[in-house]
């Protein structure tokens, strides 16, 4: 495929997406449900791409996502809830006096959220990154639970409002804010992955001993990757806070980490576009399957199993099927390309012809 054709395709794709977004924005009321799915997918995509940076590209199996997202989310929430609304939010114990006067615009708060997450990642990374594979996963998982418990603890009622959660977090003014921010975050991570540092990360993933013999300081590079990933995870958390408007410590349970991990594995470890694709499939897929949760009657016969919770059973089965057929995730470690798309459809077509006994190359 020629370069000019590709550019043309890219321009067309971007304009179609933009047109859809503008259309949705203009009919906000009618499509609020679809908008919320798109926004959630994009936010999860940022978290998934950030997770891919450590897990897929640097080979560090870290499961601290929920913890870092909690830090980002609480930072953004505490700094952006309007001062006049705070008394109502902290109705039980009142808010810490010093904190109650600080209010920041959304973007600085978001950056600060990411920064706190990154600093904390640096602090826990120093001891924890000496561990390998599963042990690292367990340590980071534990860390994320600690963060959640600390946030929920009654001793911090004046700061985090303990288990009562935070409300009245300003929502996004339009669909473009979260989408633009998410695209920017993903773009930065992609640039990093394609740089000399990204290559060093991949070298560490492939073979630590060899990477070290190539003069790559393992610890420094692992820590860099871990901190940058945590920064963007924190930002994703901040975006999630603004998206949901209400958060509490229960939002950031281990299941959130598993959701992100699921997206990364489904999309393919080491594929950014895979993570984005996975994020949309998982988030939207869960919504599409909602009809399994409603009782279904055929004539006068009540179909068994169709009740609340059945959706997740179907969803899990579908996931297992996908993982069985695409053991390396949908994209493997490849990235999206127009050639790949064309090849995919060609294969699909020729395979069908073969199955029908037709001649596959008789074009």
């Amino acid at each position, binding site marked *: 495929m020629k370069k000019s054709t590709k550019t043309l395709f890219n321009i067309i794709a971007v304009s179609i997406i933009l047109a859809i977004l503008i259309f949705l924005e203009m009919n906000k009321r009618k499509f609020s449900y679809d908008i919320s799915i798109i926004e959630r997918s994009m936010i999860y995509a940022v978290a998934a791409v950030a997770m891919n940076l450590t897990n897929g590209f640097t080979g560090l199996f870290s499961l601290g996502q929920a913890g870092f997202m909690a830090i980002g989310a609480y930072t953004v929430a505490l700094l952006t809830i309007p001062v006049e609304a705070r008394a109502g939010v902290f109705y039980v114990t009142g808010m810490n006096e010093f904190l109650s006067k600080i209010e920041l615009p959304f973007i600085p708060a978001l950056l600060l959220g990411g920064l706190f997450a990154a600093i904390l990642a640096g602090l826990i990374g120093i001891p924890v990154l000496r561990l390998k594979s599963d042990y690292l996963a367990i340590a980071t998982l534990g860390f994320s639970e600690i963060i959640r418990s600390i946030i929920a603890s009654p001793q911090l009622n004046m700061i985090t409002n303990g288990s009562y959660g935070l409300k009245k977090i300003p929502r996004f003014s339009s669909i473009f804010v979260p989408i633009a921010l998410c695209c920017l975050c993903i773009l930065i991570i992609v640039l990093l992955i394609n740089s000399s540092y990204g290559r060093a990360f991949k070298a560490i993933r492939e073979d630590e001993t060899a990477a070290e013999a190539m003069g*790559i300081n393992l610890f420094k590079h692992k820590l860099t990757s871990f901190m940058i990933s945590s920064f963007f995870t924190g930002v994703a958390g901040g975006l999630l806070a603004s998206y949901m408007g209400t958060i509490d410590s229960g939002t950031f349970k281990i299941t959130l980490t598993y959701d992100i991990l699921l997206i990364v594995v489904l999309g393919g470890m080491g594929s950014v576009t895979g993570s984005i694709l996975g994020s949309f499939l998982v988030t939207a897929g869960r919504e599409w399957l909602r009809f399994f949760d409603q009782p279904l009657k055929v004539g006068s016969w009540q179909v068994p199993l169709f009740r609340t919770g059945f959706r997740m059973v179907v969803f899990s089965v579908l996931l297992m099927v996908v993982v069985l057929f695409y053991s390396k995730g949908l994209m493997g470690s490849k990235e999206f390309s127009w050639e790949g798309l064309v090849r995919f459809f060609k294969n699909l077509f020729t395979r069908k012809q073969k199955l029908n006994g037709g001649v596959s190359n008789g074009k």
Partner: protein
Amino acid sequence: MGNNVLRLEHCTMQFGGVVAVDNFSMEVNEHEIVALIGPNGAGKTTAFNFVTGVYEPTNGKVFFHDELMVANHPAGKMKKLYKGDPDQICEKIVRKTPDQITKLGIARTFQNIRLFKALTVFENVLIAKHMHAKSGLLKTAMHLNYREEIQMRKEAMELLEMQNLAAYRNDIASSLPYGQQRHLEIARALATNPTLLLLDEPAAGMNPQETDELAAFIKKTKEDFNLTVFLIEHHMDLVMGISDRIYVLDFGKMIAHGLPADIQNNDRVIQAYLGVEENA
């Protein structure tokens, strides 16, 4: 001491009570090819790893260009267990990690090839250029270091062309034939701009023809890059063909060293390799 590049002084390595290397001293002079040989379990790889930073000797010093690179003395439990020469215990402790050692100018290859398997041939070599990059993380991540990046790519490409690997540049490293993988590993080591090249059994798993090619290749590379080479090897043909000097280890002790011709006729070496003649 003159122009020696690498010098080991009274190195001893003990794993608990087992002495793997016993009071071993050696030196590698500039532009030499020096081989370390010995039967299996003689302690070659252990001695080699003092230089690569994988092991620290229990006691002993390693100098690189007459500068102290590694030094250690028995401590803790080892104090009681230490079986080496008590007069040679050194005082200082100097430690270097493998990446610091590479930065000093010592490059190495591995016994069981360790390429970055899923990456392309070009990327494999390009990664070795990363440590010389001066731009910071932010600049690199935002691709503002394009001048440096172009320079890195140019150097890596030149190296591939020189090693006749340019045709494979976009191939995945693990898809190369075995001999070419060895070749690539050496090219990758050269990309770190070393003055000393360490080869860990470079001919392992090669057939006689490939071994001959490798010998010529090592000699040529040494000339082209103005290198000093230190290698461990089992293939006697290769060792005898290219080495300037040879050290022989057996059960951790140095039993001989000298020119290839002397080693070939040394009775102790023949005994160590073939056993003592009994029924001949």
